[in-house]
Structure formats: C-alpha cells, structure tokens
C-alpha cells in the first residue's frame, strides 16, 4: 500500500513540469527565506516589496521582448546600453522641447537601433550575438561621448511622475509599466499568429521556413521590439532617478537574460514564457534587495548574481 503510494508520489514528482515552474517555486522559497531571516531588518514591510517592484521594473520591461528574442533563438546583449543612451537623449530632448518630444526621442533611439540590429541579423545574416555585442560597446561609448560622462538632470515633473515616482493609490506607477508590458507581451506570444511564428522560428528555423513563415521578418521585428523595450526601460530609469545617464542600464543584459531563462524560456529557442520572465526579473530584484539588507557589498552581490546566471543556464540545459 505504502509502496504504491510511494511510486505514485515519485511518478508525480517525475512528471511535474519542474522546468516550467522553477521560477515560481524559487521565488516563493526565497521570499519565505528572506522573510524569516531578514524580517526584523524591514524586509517584510509592504514598502520594501513595492520598492523592489520599482527597482526591477526596467529589467522586467526589457525581459518582455528579450523573451521573444530568445524564443526566436537569437540574443540581444545591447539592451542595457540602449536603455542608457535612450535615457540621456530623452533627458536632453525633455529640457529643450518638452514632454512629448522627449519621450518620442527616447523611444525613437531604441527603434532606430533596433532597426539597425534587425537588418544586420535578418538581412545580412550576421549572428545576433556578434551584432548586439558590437552594439553594446558602440552605444555605450556613444552615450558616454555624447554626455561627456555627465548626468543630465530632468526637471520635468510630469515626466518624472509618469515614468518614475508616480503612484496610483499605494501602487507605484512603475509596476503598471512592467505589468502592462508583460500582459501585452504574454498575449501577443500566446494568442497571435506573430507569437506562434516566433516560437516556430526558434523551434526549427528550417521547418518554419518550409511552412511559409517569413523567418527573416520575424527576427527583424523581435529585435526592433527589443530595442523599443530597452528605450522604455531607459525612460523608466530616467524617470525614477530624475536624470539621464549613460550608466543607467549598464550590465543589465545579463540580468535580463537570467530573468528570461529562469522564467522558463528555452535558451535554444522555441519556448517562451513572458509571465515567467516577469517573475524572474522580480526574483533577481528580490535577491539583490535581500543581499543589501543583509549587509553584503556590491562585489558580493555581483558574485551571487553571477551564480544565479550560472544556475539559470544549467536549468536551461534540461530543455
């Protein structure tokens, strides 16, 4: 009797979709762990959790389109630097031309860079890994050069409220941006022709092509989308920190990719989980926050983050 129960239980354990749900389990366990160990340091307070939501909003927004990019079996390493450049361009345009032009200028930055990346990958068939690695340096250097490494302050309070500190009731506006992007992304991936074609392209490029999917077009649009999302993330940095600076978003690509892979998207393409990516981003924010509260310094945080990425990649080997 106990034997059949045991085998049933073991079968349930074996057939449970662990890979798909890893992030939710990890998230809850980490939350419980920090609540117990860091409870008296203020981890549990709702203010702290909302603060985490604010801090990880940019990562979460970039993770939405990164999910598409990785599901297509491509990669975008340039997201962080695109966010940084967008933040300084938006900040300058805001000062000179006001809110609308400022936002438009910021978003156009990612649009233009995304189109360049997309064309190089889709039309000229350069691997996205190389294109975006080049773009990462190029764009970051550009932003630094353009601002002479100086921050550009943003005095426009409407902007700072919409893209930063604004609240709807007790809920930070930034959470609306990240959740909004996530909902739209999840809907597009799961319920539209485009989403299905993205997954098919990543699942088998040749089979998708032979079935009539314009795989070059799909790759182009996901990379353009990734550029635009990176710009939006840059605006969220600018609004939250009330300035544009080339450093905003620096090194984010790794966190974004880790969030996406932890969330259940296959590093080899063909499977994507947008909600998982959101929780992945929140998870990374949670860990950082916990480590700061525990008194670890930046270098130690970096070590833990590196470890998380390694774990994420190990997980993705099991696809």
């Amino acid at each position, binding site marked *: 009797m106990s034997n059949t129960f045991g085998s049933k239980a073991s079968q349930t354990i074996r057939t449970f979709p662990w890979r798909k749900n890893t992030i939710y389990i990890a998230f809850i366990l980490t939350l419980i762990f920090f609540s117990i160990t860091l409870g008296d340091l203020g981890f549990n307070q709702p203010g702290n959790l909302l603060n985490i939501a604010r801090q990880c909003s940019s990562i979460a927004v970039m993770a939405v389109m990164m999910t598409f990019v990785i599901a297509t079996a491509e990669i975008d390493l340039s997201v962080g630097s695109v966010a940084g450049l967008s933040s300084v361009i938006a900040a300058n345009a805001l000062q000179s031309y006001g809110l609308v032009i400022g936002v438009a200028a910021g978003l156009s930055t990612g649009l233009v860079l995304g189109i360049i990346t997309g064309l190089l990958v889709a039309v000229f068939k350069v691997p996205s890994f190389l294109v975006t690695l080049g773009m990462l340096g190029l764009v970051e250097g550009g932003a630094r050069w353009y601002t002479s490494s100086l921050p550009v302050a943003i005095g426009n309070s409407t902007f700072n409220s919409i893209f930063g500190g604004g609240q709807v009731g007790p809920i930070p506006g930034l959470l609306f941006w990240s959740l909004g992007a996530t909902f739209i992304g999840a809907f597009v991936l799961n*319920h*539209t*022709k485009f989403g299905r074609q993205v*997954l098919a392209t990543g*699942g088998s490029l*040749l089979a998708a092509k032979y079935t009539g999917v314009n795989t070059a077009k799909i790759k182009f649009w996901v990379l353009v989308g990734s550029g635009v999302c990176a710009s939006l993330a840059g605006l969220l940095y600018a609004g939250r920190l009330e300035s544009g600076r080339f450093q905003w978003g620096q090194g984010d690509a790794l966190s974004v990719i880790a969030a996406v892979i932890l969330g259940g998207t296959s590093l080899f393409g063909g499977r994507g989980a947008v909600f998982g990516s959101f929780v992945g981003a929140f998870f990374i924010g949670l860990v950082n926050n916990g480590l700061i509260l525990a008194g670890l310094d930046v270098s130690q945080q970096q070590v833990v983050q590196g470890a998380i990425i390694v774990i994420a990649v190990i997980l993705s080997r099991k696809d």
Partner: protein
Amino acid sequence: MPTLVELKGIRKSFSGVTVLKGVDFSLNSGEVHALVGGNGAGKSTLMKILMGVYTCDEGEIMIEGSSFQFKNSLEARKAGIGMVFQEFSLIPNLTVAQNIFLTNEFTKKFGFISEKRAQKKTLEIFESMGVEIDPNAAVGGLSTALQQLTEIAKALAQNARILILDEPTSSLASDEAQALFGLIRRLQDRGLGIIYISHRMDEIFTIAQRVTVIRNGQKVMDSQTSSLGSLDVIEAIVGHKMEETLEWQKRNSQVDSKVLLSAQSVSDGKKIKDLSFELREGEILGFAGLMGSGRTEVLNMIYGITPTQHGKIFVEGKQVSLKNIQRAIGLGIALVPEDRRKYGLVLRHSVSDNLTLPSLQGLQTFGILRKDKIQNYISSMIEKFSIKAQNKKNDVVLLSGGNQQKVVIAKWFGTNPKIMMMDEPTAGVDIETKVEILNTIRKFADEGKGVLFVSSELPELLAVCDRILVLRDGEVSQDLLRENIPTEEFLQLAMQRSTHE
C-alpha cells in the same frame, strides 16, 4: 549451418507498457534474415536488446552457443555484433581509416597512434569487401553510399560475425543498392549472419532467405522467403487482408485538360537544365530518376527555395515568379519535404502547434487566435488523417515516424492547396500508413487538384501516378503514361537507359 544468434522468449516493458511479449528470433551463419513490422511493432526494441542498448526483462540471448547478458553495447560488440545505423555514427572530419579504428587504434611505442597500419588494414578490409575507397579521404566528403560502406567496414574491423542493417537502402540510389546487395552476398558467403531491417518488400525478397514479422510485440511469422509472396508478408505485418492499394487502381475521376502548372525550359543554374512539363487538374504526375537526376531540385525550384534562372513557370495560365516560399504557398503550392524531421516539423512543439502553423491566418479574428476554431480544426484533422497521438498537446517528436508524416501531410491539406508536391512521402513509414497516404493522394487528385510525386520506390510510383516523367541530368528524358508502363522492370530500365545513352 551453425546458429549465430538465438533469442528465446524475450520480454520487455517500459513503464508498464509491454513492448515485447516473449519473442523468439534466430540467425544462422551465412543467412540474411529480414526483420519487418510496422512502426512501434517492437523490432527496434528487439534489436536494441541484441545490441546491449536495453536489457530484457525476461528471456535468453545466445550468441554462437553461449549465453550472454549484455550490460552495454560495448559488450555486444565484443561478442561479434555489428550495427550499421540509419543515421551514420561516423565523425565527418576524420578520415575513413581513422573512423574505422576509432577507439581501437593501432599503437606504436609510447602509445603513439600508427596511422600507417590503420590505413593498410583498412585497405585490406575494403579489398575483402570488394570496394574501393581512399582510406585517407575525410568521411564528410564521401557520398552516403560510401559512408555506409565505411560503416560496414568499421563493423568488420571489429570482427563482427553478426551484422544488423537498419533500412540500409533508404538513402541509396538503385545502382548503389545493387552494389550493397552484392556486398551482402559476399559477406554471407564468408559465413556472416545478417539481420536486415526494411519496409521494402522487393528488397526483402531480393536479398533475404528468411523473414520474421513482428506485430504488437509478438512474432507472427518466421518463414523462408522462397515459400512466400509479398502479400503474405504485408498481411502478416498489418494483421488483416489488404485491399490492393499498393497496386495501380483506375482513378475515380478523369484527368482534366486544364493545365494547373506548367514549366517551360526552366533551369536553376545547377542541377536543373532546360526542363519542361505540364501538370493538369486531377493529375498525379510522378518524377522518376536516379539520385542526382534532379527530382528533388525540381520541387525545390517550384517551391521558391532555389530561384529559377531561366525559363518560365505558369500557374493556372498566369506567368509567375517564384521568388520565395511565401510566394509559392500564396499561389496554392505546398511541399511535403523529403526530410520531415528537419524541414517538415518543429519537433519540440505539439502536434496541435505543428498542424496549425501554416493555417494561422484563417484561425484568427481581428488578429487574435481563436481557441475554439483551433480546437475544431485540430480535431477534424486528427480524425480525417487518423493521426494516432495520445495527446495533441504532446510534442510531435514523441509520435512514430508514420504519424509524424501524417501530421506533415495533414498540415498542408489543411491549407487547401491546389498543387501538392510530395518528396518521398512514405520514406520510413510502415505499410499501413503508406496505404493511407497513397489513398489520401488519390482522393486529393479526385477533387481536381494536382500532385507532383517524387519517389525512389517504383512500386509506389506505379501505384498512384497517372503519368511518370523520367528525369536524367535535370532534363525530362521520357514522358510515360501509366497505362503504357507494363511492369516495374520496364520503368527501371527506362531510368537506367537514360543514364547510359
């Protein structure tokens, strides 16, 4: 004749499902023993037990009189069992000799590898096989046929006394297959025993002395081929009487005079040179020809994969430029490609996602995919093509080869094409599924659509085609109406003759 292999009462189950229910099998020295059965009948499980990949739950394995329990394939190889895999297990950038003696290298003093001895030994083996291959050639640069011979040489180098050949002719041209049969006969004379796995009846009767049929994990036939006809074997495989679907049938409808597709002296600048043909409504047009005659390339050109360099293509009387696949699909052309796993399916996606991929446009309202429409569509396709999938949410890679092929065919029929192009649509598919596929093609043509049918299996071409074009070097060398082809030999001769003119 001494007995080489004796399998007695082999039973095997996987997580509660019994795959083999006490199967006996024996192989004598100097014998070619064909092992056949539908997909999932258990023949590959049986062979994997003999090769030490699986261990059996019950039963006995005797090799040359002594009992074995193989723990891994290395032990089986040591006992004299050689296997030539369907997908070759050779390393492309190593040379022929290096591959043959991989992990078995001749060593000199201090453990250095002696390439010279390996080369010499390789030449000896090739000589005994009666083939000529340069031991220093990189395997990746060899043709499929030569790679296969290398694979056989590798087994012989390990002193294999028992050779398992799994669908060995599936990627060979017919003259290459003949050469392989010659080799098999020579090995037989040397006293080797050969287990020959194949779906092709004509081959089994050409090369094998004995045939064992496995159905549902049980042996249902073990007889000398000389006392059988191919229908006997087919019936044993399927388990009931077959209608004569594999024979030519008079079609229910007539071929229309309206031309659906016409090519006028087209070329792709490579294999296809100055090729012209017409496909009419309701017609099944076959392409026959040896490997490299341009059969597949014609389909690829019409599908927009390789661009048309010269000549004109007309679809329903209008001249078209088939620049890419989307254009071809837009004109109502579909292709069931030769390699379904590579080009036909997203293996890690579900049956349902694969079926809907080319038809998403019609399954949405205002840009949003409709779950209800998709459900209905999938259910009707699964029923219509009798696709056997435990769950339509399961990955298509879990299906048997025949069912995978049904998914590929179903997904294209779902787009309602006017012209269906099929490249070896029954390769690696069991007989029952083959019959279903051929019937589907006939029905499709009866609706007034056109079919371009490429196959290297002549009985199959003769069973469904209304007209057969014999290709040679990218040109049509003969245009034969089905009723003017009396026998398979006639067609075979037409193909051969066209190479030796």
